């Protein structure tokens, strides 16, 4: 009669996060700043993506001590990242009791072929995507929330915008198809037919869809919200800016009032320098994170 960790509760937590900002934090102190600024959840990790990018080497799940420190510091949900395909890191994170696991391309993939079987877990998962096919493959593996990947740690919104537009344009294309065309569409997308049909019927992904990877100003957040994101992840954009508390608060306000240009102007004033960005062309292909995952 009473069932815990059902699909409805997994997907439902993501629904509760909508219209909100999920912030990367590396210490309990950061987590408290994020919570005070109005973050709906924090992503606990050892280094923000721009530092992972700078450090190179293999990026792994964070130390459980650090994750627990953050879990006890705040009352909002705490997410943590596991490597793509590394189901043991995910088992460890579930044992810690984190509220959501991000099977993330920001860390170095552990499996070049398979993602984690997320149905096997009680904890819900969020996964990255660049297009509808990738999103639906992740949902079929059990992801209860999707985020477009952007290009993490760049402070550059261009990839996030491209991917979000691609996802939404593909959904519109599916909506316009005849029923008998959806079979081939599913084949071409490499996604399960049942999920493709659901997207065509409902005009949206089967789970909540956030945007990640490159948001570094209130205007960036409002841009993706106006395009159709249901909320935002901000990684390096907050704690690599000059005044993280102010930037965090301003991005929260902009995500709520994303259509009100007067408010956006107001909250954008005097924030200090945002993180220094990177032009995408200057990143060699093998260092791009968005292409990880399949």
């Amino acid at each position: 009669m009473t069932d815990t960790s059902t699909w409805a509760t997994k997907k439902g937590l993501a629904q509760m996060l909508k219209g909100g900002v999920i912030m990367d934090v590396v210490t309990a102190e950061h987590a408290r700043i994020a919570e005070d600024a109005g973050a709906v959840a924090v992503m606990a990790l050892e280094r923000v993506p721009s530092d992972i990018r700078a450090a190179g080497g293999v990026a792994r799940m964070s130390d459980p001590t650090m994750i627990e420190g953050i879990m006890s510091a705040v009352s909002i949900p705490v997410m943590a990242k596991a490597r793509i395909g590394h189901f043991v890191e995910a088992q460890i994170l579930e044992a810690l009791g984190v509220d959501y696991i991000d099977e993330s391309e920001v860390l170095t993939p552990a499996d070049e072929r398979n993602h984690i079987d997320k149905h096997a877990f009680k904890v819900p998962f969020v996964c990255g995507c660049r297009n509808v096919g990738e999103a639906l493959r992740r949902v079929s593996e059990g992801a209860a929330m999707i985020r477009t990947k952007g290009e993490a740690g760049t402070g550059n919104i261009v990839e996030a915008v491209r991917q979000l537009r691609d996802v939404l344009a593909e959904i519109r294309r599916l909506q316009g198809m005849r029923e008998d065309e959806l079979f081939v569409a599913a084949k071409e997308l490499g996604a399960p037919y049942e999920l493709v049909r659901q997207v065509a019927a409902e005009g949206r992904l089967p789970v909540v869809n956030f945007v990640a990877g490159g948001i570094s100003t209130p205007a960036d957040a409002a841009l993706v919200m106006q395009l159709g994101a249901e909320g935002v992840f901000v990684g390096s954009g907050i704690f690599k800016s000059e005044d993280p508390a102010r930037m965090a608060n301003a991005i929260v306000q902009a995500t709520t009032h994303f259509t009100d240009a007067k408010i956006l102007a107001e909250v954008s004033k005097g924030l200090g320098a945002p993180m220094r960005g990177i032009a995408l062309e200057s990143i060699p292909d093998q260092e791009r994170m968005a292409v990880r995952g399949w």
Partner: protein
Amino acid sequence: MTMRIGVLALQGAFAEHVATLRAIGAEPVEVRLPSHLDDVEGLIIPGGESTTIRRLIARWGLAQPILDLASSGAPIFGTCAGMIVLSREIVGGEAPVLPLLDVTVERNAFGRQLDSFETELDVPVLGDTPVHAVFIRAPVISGVGPGVDVMASLPDGRIVAVRQRNVIATSFHPELAGETRFHRLLVTMASEHADPGEGVGRRQYPTRRSQHGR
């Protein structure tokens, strides 16, 4: 007359409440600023993160206008985070936000996300069919004042739905389960508020008492 019902749209699952209201023939209005409360006959405070919603209510000066709306008699309905926002006392000592319910509320009372659950719940005032209730990092009411009606409790006695005059709150999410009876109740209360022909005055509607009293 179509009821205009506000849905606080600062953060959280407001779109689900908007859809539910539309499905039962009410007119939803997204509320982000005090001016959006003009001409609404009721208000829903959705699930979301209560710490976030609390800060946004304060930042945009929404507390007093919502309290004024409630004291005018317009119905207010809070789900999950909305229940926390409406409670007079929050375990742990956080300041109340809109202290309209004389109750003590405990945040994340069942634990973390791994303890989220769904169940069938008897809500006698809504009839014999149980409510399919989805609880997500949900709060519970750990104490009620004298004016508070308990609408539903779990088998272990923990209170998960309350009503005090024109204010209703649930720990769970009717809007995630295709459950419309709470919203219908809210809309009924809103129409009574908008047109007080029922109960007082007897201006336009014949009632048993006015027909028989003559």
